[in-house]
């Protein structure tokens, strides 16, 4: 199981590099779908079945399909080419940053044991301590739906 999760993680990172250099919008969105499915597998392998199900339903089933539907409706085919000079500058700064992050993480005492929570404990905390944030998220979703409708409405 551990080796399987290791390979999945490596595959996810490689696919995210593929999106940076890809020329085809459809292939980019399909590799985004594979990334979402892989992160869902990581959620399940690390012990949270609920986040696995929500990840596959909301991201892989909702958001990716919505993006594919939009680009097929608009007929977007052409895309840009990445400039190599910008890529070199960006990757230089990224690896400089990663060097510092690695120096911080090198001696950090990560726990060997992974704690698992029961779902009723998590939802008790969510609906008692975080009730205001929960209601605000529902308000943001409602505003998003109404706002999207108002933006695309024909005058």
């Amino acid at each position, binding site marked *: 199981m*551990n080796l399987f999760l*290791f390979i999945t*993680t490596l595959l*996810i*990172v490689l696919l*995210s*590099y593929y*999106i*940076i250099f890809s020329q085809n*919008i459809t292939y*980019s969105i399909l590799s*985004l779908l594979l990334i*979402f499915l892989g*992160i869902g597998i990581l*959620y399940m392998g*690390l*012990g*949270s079945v609920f*986040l696995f199900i*929500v990840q596959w339903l*909301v*991201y892989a089933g*909702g*958001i990716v399909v*919505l*993006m594919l539907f*939009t680009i097929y*409706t*608009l007929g*977007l085919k*052409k895309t*840009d080419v*990445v400039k190599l000079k*910008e*890529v070199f500058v*960006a990757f230089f700064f*990224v690896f400089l940053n*990663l060097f510092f*992050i690695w120096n911080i*993480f090198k001696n950090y005492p*990560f*726990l060997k044991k*992974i*704690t*698992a*929570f029961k779902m009723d404990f*998590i939802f008790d*905390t*969510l609906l008692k301590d*975080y009730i205001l*944030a*929960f209601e605000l*998220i*529902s308000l*943001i*979703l409602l505003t*998003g739906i109404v*706002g*999207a409708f108002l*933006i695309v409405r024909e005058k």
Partner: protein
Amino acid sequence: MMGFYYFCGILLFINGILIMVLRKGFIYILIGIELSLNALSFLFFLASRSLGNPHGEIFAILLFGIAAAGIAIGLAILINLVKAKGTQDIEEFKDTGG
């Protein structure tokens, strides 16, 4: 092994930022936002699991809602921009004000 997951989560977040910065298509900016938010919720989940309290996992659950609302607004803006200009290149939208 936990450090490896953390490092790959950080790499995913940075790659999302790079997609937003390096590409000129509007749909790629949306892809970058989604990838960064998803990597962020994965990092929250990892922190919750390795520190032993449930608050990180709750933040991961709340981030799903924010990402879904963001992609709905973003795709609506993309539809309007493509209707107005006929392209998704963000260089063409410099004179789009108001």
